[in-house]
């Protein structure tokens, strides 16, 4: 038995079969994810290089301190919920894949549906956060005048606080680094786009599962590939979270 096994093992690379015992689609997905990791890597490294070339960078605990119904005073509370939602959706995806291994169509449908709900919830949270940042008004001292600014691509209201000046009881700041908005919206937007496409993929998988396509094929490999993508998108979020909210 053991000799037979070793003979087998040495032949993995000798042609006629996949050396990794993987179907080609999964192999493609792995390479695609590596490629995509380079896209995000390029964004995040650019962000890092610009951020650390500035004299001043806004404090995330001040920028991200609100949630629906809470006006300030809750640093990173909302984004923690978002992160939690996304991680839970990864768990439900694992369960969907697991049910797929067992060939249990109903189980797959159930967990896939929860994953989609998680993805949509995350996207809604992100929409709220963007909206809050863009439309929020902050007193900024520009050329000796106080102006009310939101956070957008070309304006940043989170500069250093001007000592001894208040405006309707709020403190007043100087303009902050413009790069903040560009990178924040650019990178979280690109990530959100990935979540969005992941949701679309999952919806397609759901419909296909419902129609029994995978049962007819005899395997749920497509769900596994969608799962790989979904986990990757979650993993990227961990880095985005780290770079924008924690550091």
């Amino acid at each position, binding site marked *: 038995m053991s000799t037979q096994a070793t003979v087998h093992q040495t032949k993995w690379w000798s042609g006629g079969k996949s050396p990794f015992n993987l179907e080609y*689609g999964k192999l493609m997905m792995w390479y695609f994810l590596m490629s995509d990791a380079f896209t995000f890597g390029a964004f995040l490294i650019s962000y890092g290089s610009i951020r650390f070339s500035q004299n001043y960078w806004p404090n995330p605990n001040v920028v991200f301190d609100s949630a629906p119904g809470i006006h300030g005073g809750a640093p990173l509370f909302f984004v923690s919920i978002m992160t939690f939602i996304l991680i839970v959706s990864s768990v439900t995806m694992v369960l969907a894949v697991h049910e797929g291994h067992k060939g249990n169509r109903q189980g797959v449908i159930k967990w896939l549906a929860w994953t989609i709900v998680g993805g949509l919830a995350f996207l809604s949270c992100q929409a709220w956060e963007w909206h809050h940042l863009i439309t929020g008004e902050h007193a900024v001292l520009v050329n000796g005048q106080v102006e009310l600014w939101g956070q957008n691509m070309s304006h940043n209201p989170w500069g250093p606080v001007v000592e001894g000046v208040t405006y309707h009881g709020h403190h007043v700041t100087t303009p902050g680094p413009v790069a903040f908005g560009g990178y924040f919206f650019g990178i979280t937007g690109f990530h959100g786009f990935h979540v969005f496409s992941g949701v679309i993929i999952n919806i397609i998988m759901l419909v296909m599962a419902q129609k029994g396509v995978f049962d007819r094929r005899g395997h749920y490999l497509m769900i596994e590939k969608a799962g790989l993508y979904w986990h990757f998108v979650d993993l990227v979020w961990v880095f985005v979270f780290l770079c924008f909210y924690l550091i």
Partner: protein
Amino acid sequence: MSDAMSVHPEVVTTHDVHHDEHHVHHHKETFITKYVFSQDHKTIGKQFLITGIIWAIIGGLFSVLFRLQLGYPDQHFQILETVFGKWAEGGQIKPEFYYALVTMHGTVLVFFVLTAGLSGTFANILIPLQLGARDMASPFLNMLSYWFFFLASVIMLSSLFISTGPAASGWTVYPPLSALGQASEGSKLGMDMWLVSMAMFIVSSLLGGLNYISTILNMRTKGMSMTRMPLTIWAMFFTAVLGVLSFPVLLSGAILLLFDRNLGTSFYLSDIVVNGQILPNEGGSAILFQHLFWFLGHPEVYIILLPAMGMVSEILSVNSRKPIFGYMAMLGSLFAICILAFLVWAHHMFVTGLNPLLGSIFVLLTLLIAVPSAIKVFNWLTTLWRGNIRFTPATLFAIGFVSLFISGGLTGIFLGNSTIDIHLHDTMFVVAHFHIVMGVASFFGMLAGVYHWFPKMFGRYLNSTLGYIHFWVTIIGAYLIFWPMHYQGLAGMPRRYLDKSSWVSFTQFGELDKMITVVSIIVFAVQLMFVFNFFYSIFKGRKVTTQNPWGANTLEWTTPIRPGHGNWEGEIPEVHRWPYDYGKDGREFIPQTEPIGENESKH
């Protein structure tokens, strides 16, 4: 134990399924599914090749037309006004438009011809045929890869016809020039189209690359272990890996540039005054773009070169009737080049104010590339050494490739030393370097491939007499055009300038520039002759009558003369040996499909 060993049912290469499909297809195949939206890798390869040829004519024509002006700066050419209209009023190219022309020339040849036209063609045609596969891993994504390239082509081509003209900030599209529409006409709509077109191009290259990688890893026929693959396939494999890992970084860079242009961000912009107007952007870095660009840009030059290297290895071995010298060394060098390609990008940025310590590290890594390059050159030469060489046009182009690679590689060593590069950067020396080592050399590899595999592609031969004329005029012409540019560069003549007459010291090059222009017209004409030969031979060329016209060992020559979709009629052949058993045990060649004989000597 046995569980871990079990093979997924869908993992075993599904040759036979495909084969059945092929028969089914045969009956209901229409013109559209067979020639337009084809999923047959051979047809897709030909689509890439023909699109590449069309682009090469356009890109080449641009260079001939601006060369006309460079050679004769104060003359008026009616043809320029006829072709370019208001951009060459009175028959003289306007300076801004000259910049648009070099940009388009570079973009088209680097990306559309030598990347898509070269990898797209030969990876598609050769990977399944030489590996013993019915088709690519995913024929559908493979087809999409071509159509994304087509879309990219349509967008880039349309940008030539808009009123503000195409992108005009060099093929490297450095900001701030490329980011600011108010800075030049070519930075208006044309630049957006350039970026969108490149995004489509990146999608195309990604779809293609993923397919090539998974086909090579998963779809090899029985017995085709990795080290029995022809070097062509290894080269395509590394090319695809380079592309999959470096193009996404350009995508990031391009997206940020699009934002800077259209959304008011400041990724690359800071403290800028245009036409007396102070821009609000601050905090960005133009150098950042250069890093992102060259992280792709340097691997890109090897994406262009490696397929040519692979094909040259194969063609030289077949036609000198000798095994390739140092197969494992060739493979190791390809691998080393692939790794180093990711670690040298800043040698394009020595004069940006790079920290000299960092610069010296990049000098070291850059010069290290000379080692695997030299190993490869040595192996090609020793493969030829005392061979029984058949001088077909393909062989000549392959030898020409080696010659050009040596010449251009040597000038790379000049440039790789940062101290010398301070003098040479942005001069004609760089233009000479990369045209010889990348442009012309890869073109030679590609042409060698076309001459060699044309019989497999179309079941007919290209005309050899025209082939010989093509080779000799092109190689002599290429050296006459690009060699003198080294001297211009050493004398300090800058690149990308239309009119250098304000420098008295460059007037000595006036006659030289005229000579270069005349030769480039001749060389271009000869390429048109090749295009004629190509299309004429598809329909009227001498017919191939034997399955294996070159007496080669690789699997593509075990298919029918005109293989259908699915490549082999019956079973896919099994492989028993490496592809380079030429002149062994008194036999001229031993195909890969032949089992090892009992008393056979080792190679």
